[in-house]
């Protein structure tokens, strides 16, 4: 199986590489369109600021490539947020895969949310054998509001979408690669999805 992690200069890619290796798979890092298109699974990571990450995607032409991918794609953290319609962070236009606008937590809670919080209302293949209310590791100031494409929700200030899915596109606000054994299981579920979705 060919797993490609999209390398566009935004994010802690090494942790995802290592997590995939711990699961017994191997991933390659690439920003080459052909390499990405021929992968069985694509991981779209990202940490940092939305508008500068989006700029890097646009510069490399990946902004038009990603929404047209046919194999399972997993966006993590900022990767997930960039797959949405827009982000309030830096007034960024997103890839528009998920029909939701990313907005900021208000100062009624500490921002960023940093640490372990529970995911529930799970509904997706990637949560196979994952019980409700498991704790996942999250670090973020912006969030996707609860919506039709939510496949997991989390409560912080309000109930929001901590994972999204549309067709072959998956996104997790939490970091499965940093969320202990349960997180690794979610990553494994994704890697074991049928590649010809």
């Amino acid at each position: 199986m060919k797993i490609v992690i999209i390398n566009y200069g935004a994010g802690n890619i090494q942790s995802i590489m290592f997590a995939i290796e711990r699961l017994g798979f191997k991933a390659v890092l690439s920003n080459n369109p052909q390499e990405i298109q021929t992968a069985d699974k694509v991981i779209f990571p990202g940490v940092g600021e939305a508008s500068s990450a989006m700029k890097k995607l646009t510069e490399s032409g990946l902004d038009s490539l990603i929404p047209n991918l046919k194999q399972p794609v997993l966006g993590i953290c900022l990767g997930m947020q960039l797959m949405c319609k827009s982000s309030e962070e830096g007034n960024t236009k997103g890839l528009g895969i998920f029909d939701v606008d990313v907005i900021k937590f208000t100062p009624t809670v500490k921002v960023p949310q940093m640490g372990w919080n529970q995911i529930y209302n799970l509904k997706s293949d990637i949560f196979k054998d994952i019980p409700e209310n498991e704790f996942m590791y999250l670090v973020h100031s912006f969030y996707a509001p609860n919506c039709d494409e939510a496949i997991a929700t989390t409560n912080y200030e309000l109930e929001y979408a901590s994972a999204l899915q549309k067709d072959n596109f998956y996104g997790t606000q939490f970091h499965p690669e940093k969320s202990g054994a349960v997180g690794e299981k979610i990553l494994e579920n994704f890697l074991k999805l049928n590649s010809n979705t």
Partner: protein
Amino acid sequence: MLAKRIIPCLDIKNGRTVKGVNFVDLRDAGDPVELAEIYSAEGADELVFLDISATEERRKTLVNMVRRVAEKINIPFTVGGGISSVEDVEILLNNGADKVSINSSAVKNPQLINDLAQKFGSQCVVVAIDAKQINGQWIVHLVGGKVPTELNLFDWAVEVAERGAGEILFTSMDNDGTKNGFADEALAKLSELVNIPIIASGGAGNIQHFVDSFKVGKADAALAASVFHFKEIEIKALKEELRKNDIEVRL
């Protein structure tokens, strides 16, 4: 609900774990990667590695350690000690560290906080503040608490938050090594003043001290070293007790 975090801190010298009592006498408590794996399995929510080596190869040794830890560990970890530039941070993050902690370099060059937040995002920028009380004022100290600055703890905390720090690691030098509890009053004041997470550090001696740091000190996370290294407190037992006290934890 967002859980309160328990964070073992591993002091690292030349690739080995050490822990100073009041930051002076050092004792060897093992291999960092091995310890990290044990803590992760016991339910630690995060780990902090604080490098106190002063050799020329220190950066290379630290980067190697970070890589080895990232290979093995599936929880987040922060690396601190001697970090003073954007390049230092880049190499640590690229090798698998989730966050970096800066201390003296932030005091000497506050712009570094802005630069790091802008380049890597606030989520990976922890500003560590060591402070102790002098004539009733909490004064920020450098070099492991040896050198006083002109800065007031609370003013400095507000400034680092404004500059883009994602989290504050506050160590009370008055409490550190005493095992008499965290500086709960100062913690609570910090928590009210700034809207970013506060990690309590310095003074953990028993389970009640952790309960107090969350209930009285309103901390978001509590960090300790020797009570964990010398098995005086087991993380699982600690978390069970916290839960009994209605404190949300990941169990």
